């Protein structure tokens, strides 16, 4: 049963999983990072408190985050069709993955930025730094270890989501696990894909932590 065909399928699965995970995380940060920054800056103790903007972003984040991913995936199929042209396959799956990732990432960015010592921000203000400079030269720099650690967590979570999307024909290792393990009762293939998922997860974790540690100058 470990024919060349199966091996090829698994290799392709790894590729698809990596593609979906990395692309969605990247797109998630493309939108989630600014959203997290805005949440931090417009909060009532932020640099530029703005209750309406904060409230709107806050509500959006809460709504999207409270919908379980599997349901979100199905719910936004029409939207996925508009963006990706179809609703199945790994490229199309990137759409719901990104939608789910944005508020999740925004919240983690928000919490990282809020950990920055207010004293350092105050010092920057006392030197005449404006809001943009404080965000980009103080907050993002001081919070970078925490941002990277959270980035690692985001990768891991999105990797988990890609496996879930397998249930609805999203492709990748999750898809293989569901098709062979559930529909055909080929447990061995399922176990192999699960082990591969664990290895990928560990890999992300190890690399992420190593980068975070290397960049942390606090010790």
């Amino acid at each position, binding site marked *: 049963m470990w024919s060349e065909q199966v091996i090829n399928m698994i290799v392709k699965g790894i590729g698809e999983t990596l593609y979906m995970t990395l692309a969605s995380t990247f797109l998630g940060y493309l939108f989630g990072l600014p959203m997290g920054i805005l949440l931090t800056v417009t909060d009532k103790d932020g640099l530029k408190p703005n209750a309406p903007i904060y409230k709107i972003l806050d509500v959006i984040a809460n709504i999207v985050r409270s919908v379980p991913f599997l349901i979100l995936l199905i719910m936004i199929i029409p939207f996925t069709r508009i963006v990706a042209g179809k609703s199945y396959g790994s490229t199309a799956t990137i759409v719901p993955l990104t939608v789910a990732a944005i508020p999740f990432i925004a919240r983690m960015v928000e919490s990282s930025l809020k950990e920055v010592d207010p*004293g350092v921000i*105050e*010092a920057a203000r006392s030197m*005449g730094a404006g809001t943009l400079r404080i965000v980009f030269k103080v907050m993002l720099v001081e919070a970078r270890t925490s941002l990277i650690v959270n980035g690692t967590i985001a990768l891991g979570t999105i990797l988990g989501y890609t496996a879930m999307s397998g249930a609805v024909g999203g492709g990748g290792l999750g898809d293989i696990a569901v098709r062979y393990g559930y529909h055909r009762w080929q447990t061995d293939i399922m176990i192999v894909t699960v082990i591969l998922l664990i290895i990928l997860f560990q890999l992300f974790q190890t690399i992420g932590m190593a980068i975070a540690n290397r960049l942390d*100058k*606090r010790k």
Partner: protein
Amino acid sequence: MSEIVVENLSKTFLSKDGTVEALKNVSLQIESGDIYGIIGMSGAGKSTLVRCMNFLEVPSEGRVLINGKSLGDYSEKELRKQRESIGMIFQHFNLLMQKSVLENVCFPLYIQGKKKNAAHARALELLEIVGLSEKQNAYPAQLSGGQKQRVAIARALACDPKILLCDEATSALDPQTTVSILELLKDINRRFRITIVVITHQMSVVREICNRVAILKDGVVADEGLVSDIFTNPKSAVARELILGDSGNDLRIKSSNTPEEIQSGEKIRIVFSENSAFEPVIANLVLTFGEPVNILRADTKNVGGVAKGEMILEFLKGSTQTAEMKQYLLDHGLAVGEVTDYVE
């Protein structure tokens, strides 16, 4: 024209459990070149007051004028420009922990639009001034508290400020380091003619470097004036309390009032118990040997339940009679010890 004028300043904070009047109708004038102390107990409103001086905190009422211009009249952008000429240092240093010492000092220079090379050159000059050139590539986490504060001072000086605000700048430091940082501040005040505002809760800091002082209590100025006047004639109860609380923990003894000829002579420590009549001993010593001695310090300590007096004497520089004088003190029942650890 006074450099900093605080006019009928009030600040009220609105919090969940009601309002806090942190400052009530505070008025002060700080002249160019002053080292101006603002002292008070915790919660007196010192930080709030100093943060109003660069509008990090916007007063509820009243005005702050820097060189005659009211900060309240500035736009957000002009205010940021103005802040560049007011340096500030803090109790917990507030350095960028992820940036090297050099980059920390460069930070305000970049705000001013300096290019990397120019900023580095200027930052190195500043690190030289605070005596930390060799640490330029270190990170704040690798420095001691005193060194961190030196970096913060270099950073605050980067934009050639006319005013330096210090909020409890020595409160996280040990006495020895405190002295060295105060020394540096004094030096900066003299060399660069920078007006310094020193917030503290330690009277010893005020005594050490300030020429004027305002005593803040519950958001009100309780006493204000020349440090020497406040010390000799404190009008308010808080002032007396602060001065009293200060007597026991000298940062060090100033020897600036000591006649020159007895500076840097040999120092000894004498210890007397309650029944040794030490005063006449010193007087008689001077009469017998016809030579002045300098009393650097005299205090009493509770040692195991017995009051012990301690005095630090300094002999005339180059005196030939020190051996005999020590013997004289021993003969009169006093313990005599070497002084090696005395901080000048």
